[in-house]
């Protein structure tokens, strides 16, 4: 016996796919590649803020690699003892989570002033965070064009109603990495998925196919190595950290947009900025200034705090720390699991022009 869901639940459950009816609806409503509100900043000051330097990113990347090396070495020598657990816990986060912010900043080309350094870091970060680099560059471009526009944005991490089980599973990357593995597997045999085709130009297909094959080949190599060596240890260093070390990607990532308004053209209504301590800001590479980043993606990570100071008066109140922001997010997502129309109203001192 089947029971039809209540009409209200049917109406409120939207289709987030890029190939469904919401795509055309968003276009009809003028939401595609639209003009977004930006808090005003004098041009001369913006030119200072967007200035690029190699120094901060070189320093932070060397520190990151050193921490990876140190924790990885400890994990290797502690293998077989309980000390391997905390060592791999640290290595895993540095590999599977910190790579996300490096992927992001280098993907924008703003980490370094020198282009090839951005390229290298982007590819290293892409592999560690389990993302085929070509397709994701274009996916992220679309995310910036159409942030949290249903039917257009491929990177809406938390649809409504809240899929609580999927969020919990994705703390270990089970959902995202499985989806990416399927996508890369299709790409590797020359098949671009219909969703991907909505944001990936055909001219980029060969590069996407090539990089999917490269990533899969490295992962397969790690598997073969583990099998040949009769131990899971190689995979604990390559590949599996994208799962067991991913939880911080979720903890950070949910603060960006989760639960906020969809289909609005003002980042102040769909993006958060969270003040964090210097350690977390190193791990997250200042992506906690996420609202500022969306308004002005040209500003590199090392200048986002300064940008925040310039426009803070025009933004909603910031959140103070992870505990502060999750005091909003957890009850919000719990409520939206049952009532997707529930929303928080964030106070603004000025409204975006109509």
């Amino acid at each position, binding site marked *: 016996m089947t029971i039809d869901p209540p009409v209200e639940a049917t109406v409120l459950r939207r289709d987030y796919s890029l190939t469904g009816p919401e795509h055309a609806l968003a276009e009809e409503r003028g939401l595609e*590649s639209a003009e977004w509100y930006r808090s005003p900043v004098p*041009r001369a000051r*913006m*030119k200072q803020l*967007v*200035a*690029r330097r190699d120094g901060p990113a070189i320093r932070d990347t060397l520190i990151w690699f050193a921490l990876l090396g140190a924790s990885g070495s400890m994990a290797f020598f502690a293998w077989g003892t309980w000390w391997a657990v905390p060592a791999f816990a640290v290595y895993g986060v540095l590999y599977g989570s910190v790579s996300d912010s490096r992927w992001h900043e280098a993907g*924008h*080309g*703003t980490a370094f*002033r020198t*282009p090839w350094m951005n390229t290298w870091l982007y590819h290293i970060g892409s592999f560690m965070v389990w993302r085929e680099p*070509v397709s994701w*560059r*274009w996916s992220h*471009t679309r995310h*910036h*064009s159409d942030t949290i526009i249903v039917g257009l944005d491929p990177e809406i991490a938390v649809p409504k109603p809240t899929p609580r089980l999927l969020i919990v599973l994705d703390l270990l990357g089970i959902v995202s990495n499985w989806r990416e593995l399927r996508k890369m597997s299709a790409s590797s045999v020359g098949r671009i998925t219909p969703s991907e085709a909505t944001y990936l*130009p055909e*001219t*980029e297909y060969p590069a996407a196919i090539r990089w999917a094959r490269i990533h899969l080949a490295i992962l397969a190599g790690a598997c073969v190595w583990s099998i040949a060596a009769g131990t899971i240890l190689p995979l604990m260093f390559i590949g599996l950290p994208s799962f067991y070390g991913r939880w911080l990607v979720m903890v950070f990532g949910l603060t960006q947009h989760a639960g906020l308004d969809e289909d609005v053209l003002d980042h102040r209504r769909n993006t958060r900025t969270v003040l964090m301590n210097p350690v977390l800001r190193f791990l997250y590479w200042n992506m906690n200034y996420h609202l500022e980043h969306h308004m*002005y*993606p*040209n500003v590199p990570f090392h200048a986002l705090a300064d940008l925040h100071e310039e426009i803070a008066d025009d933004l909603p109140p910031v959140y103070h720390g992870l505990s502060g922001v999750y005091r909003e997010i957890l009850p919000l997502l719990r409520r939206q699991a049952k009532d997707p129309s529930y929303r928080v109203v964030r106070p603004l001192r000025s409204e975006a022009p109509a």
Partner: protein
Amino acid sequence: MTGSQWVDVADVDDIELDDVMRFDHAEVTYAVYRTADGRFSASQGLCTHAQVHLCDGFVIGDVIECPKHNGRFDVFSGRAKGAPAVTDLRVFATRVLDGRLQLAVPAPD
């Protein structure tokens, strides 16, 4: 120079170093650049990726960076320097005459 004509854009000092200025002529929009070392160049005014005005972008070295998606182009050759910028910008000749910057635009038919 066949097929084009010189039009007056602005006083050279109206364009700051390391900056870009919008110039509209005959219903076409252009972006005029001045690099940190004082050289001028010009291109079509809209990014070839998403048609965003490059005058709102930023000159970094010899590159113009689109304000929307960080698409980058060489300001002298117009060459797209990586995704999402994959189609080159059309560039136009410039010259300075008596302290005025001029742009070579297509001549009317």
